[in-house]
């Protein structure tokens, strides 16, 4: 097997292998690592990040970036908490709707005003955060205890936590859209070369708009989960989530240059970062080392470093072959 082939295989399956190794390590080393409680907790709380990373993955594949997802989630959680008193459906609709609104503004800024994605979404990051603070009077907004809204976060669908079920459904849908619809193929074409796509007559503006809309909607949905899991809309939560999502997408092997990527490995990237966090917590519990939250972010940064260095080497060797 030549080197380029190894590189490509590693690029696709590396994150899955790393995830498998990490899980086996945890199972071997810690007693309750694969207990039902630990597993449901991990997948329940990482569902929010998974949703955000899915939207981010699509935006990045289309050659853009969305920095607004964190504060959009905060805004979504506030909107959902405010509307949760009218029931589950209005609560969810308010959160997702707020997200879609931010996403639509992003899409218009990028496609119509032709502002660079980085700056367009930076400004909506600020605006969404300001709106969330205004709506909530700068404090957390309790969700309704009686309307059943909390079940969206804490409920179970047979053995699967509802947030996890939502995330899995979203990823399944995302994978189908990416691989089996013309919209999905256009996303990759736009990311690969916007001008070429335009010349080929592809609906570049529409698809670009759609990825930002989807990213906003998914961030709003993550906000719904945030409100339901934390029992409150949290206007100041979500700081730095966009960077976590970007890290997950990169770890999942999607290149930031756009034009290629995978939905499934993005999910693996989210799980890898989440499991790493979980393993560090278990290691703390063992008492051998005491990794404070500070050291955990150092470890996460180092982990990202290793991944991007590997990616840099691999992409160079594959591009030399190609």
């Amino acid at each position: 097997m030549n080197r380029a082939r190894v590189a490509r295989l590693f690029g696709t399956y590396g994150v899955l292998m790393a995830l498998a190794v990490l899980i086996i390590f945890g199972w071997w080393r810690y007693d309750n690592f694969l207990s039902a409680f630990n597993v449901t907790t991990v997948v329940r709380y990482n569902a929010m990040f998974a949703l955000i990373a899915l939207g981010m993955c699509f935006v990045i594949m289309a050659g853009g970036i969305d920095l607004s997802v964190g504060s959009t989630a905060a805004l979504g959680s506030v909107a959902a908490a405010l509307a949760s008193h009218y029931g589950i459906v209005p609560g969810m609709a308010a959160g997702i709707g707020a997200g879609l609104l931010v996403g639509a503004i992003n899409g218009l800024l990028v496609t119509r005003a032709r502002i660079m994605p980085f700056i367009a979404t930076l400004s909506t990051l600020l605006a969404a955060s300001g709106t969330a603070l205004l709506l909530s009077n700068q404090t957390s907004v309790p969700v309704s205890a009686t309307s059943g809204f909390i079940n969206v976060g804490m409920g179970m669908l047979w053995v699967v936590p509802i947030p996890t079920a939502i995330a899995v459904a979203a990823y399944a849908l995302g994978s189908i859209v990416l691989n089996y619809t013309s919209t999905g193929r256009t996303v990759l074409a736009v990311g690969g070369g916007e001008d070429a796509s335009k010349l080929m007559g592809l609906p570049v503006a529409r698809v670009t708009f759609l990825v930002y809309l989807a990213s906003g909607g998914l961030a709003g949905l993550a906000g719904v989960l945030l409100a339901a899991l934390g029992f409150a809309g949290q206007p100041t939560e979500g700081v730095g989530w966009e960077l976590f999502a970007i890290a997950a997408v990169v770890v999942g092997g999607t290149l930031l240059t756009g034009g290629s990527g995978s939905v499934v490995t993005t999910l693996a990237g989210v799980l890898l970062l989440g499991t790493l966090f979980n393993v560090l917590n278990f290691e703390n519990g063992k008492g051998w080392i005491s990794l404070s939250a500070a050291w955990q972010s150092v470890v996460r940064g180092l982990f990202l470093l290793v991944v991007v260095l590997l990616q840099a080497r691999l992409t160079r060797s594959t591009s030399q072959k190609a």
Partner: protein
Amino acid sequence: MTDAPPWRSDGALANFDVFGFLARYGTLIALLLLVVFNLAFTRNFATLQTLNVNLTQVCTIVIVAVGMTLVIATGGIDLSVGSIMAIAGALAPLIFLSPIFDGNVAVAVAVAMVSAILVATLCGLFNGWLVAQFRIQPIVATLVLFIAGRGIAQALTNSNLQVFRVPEFQWIGLGRPLGLPVQVIIMVVLVAFAAWMLRRTRFGRSILATGGNERAAELAGVAVNRTKLAVYAISGFCAGIAGLVVIAINSASDANLVGLGMELDAIAAVAVGGTLLVGGRATIVGTLLGALTIQLVRYTLLANGVPDAAALIVKAGIIALAVWLQQQRRT
């Protein structure tokens, strides 16, 4: 299209390029309008105290944004500045409060400042190394220190708040030689030096050439890699200074808070100031004006009773508008 000024008799005023004019002077005009508005409507605006408040608040942003401008001019971005500020801010008190200097305050403060800024510069150099050597995209390369850097700062201090009262050190944030705050002097010197460097030196031209077209610059003999290393190092250096200023003003260093969100403020100042975000064209004075405009907008709103959250939304609008205007000029 000629570059004839619109007021010349041969150039018909009908040809006047509104967008081009606004893109070039919009920030300055906005700043002047804001000043006029405040003079008319905000009470106690024309006082030395107002000037002082605004300048001290904007200083750290400008200091960081100078380095950010250079990085962006090469076509890069530096997300790690806030975390580097936290590292410098955590390190300095550890040194000047440590007992090994045995009460020799002057030496302790000197060692603390030099080593904190040195470490910050090394952090920047690390960013540059990732970008130049491994060709990692700047946004990801600097994401590493964005995540890890604050963790390092928290680990250095065990996430404890470091409180101190060391006038010799805090002079950098509280001193007033000739009635001017020290950090304002630092800011002015940095801005003047960087503006001169960008326009008049070979290094400055290399920065713009790298950002304009990297391949062409390389073929033309520009040391692209070394230029990139240098701008990230400078960005780290600036962030280090800003970190020291912030903790000096606060008389305390909180690794969780120092420099939090600074990368966004700095990038916003650069964007509003008129620097092209894809690189190749940059203006340090524009960055200063951009930062002042954002600061003054916030001050105007707050002074007139608009809540801070609403000011955020206005700030967002200004950033988008400024960049949109520049876009009109390019096309």
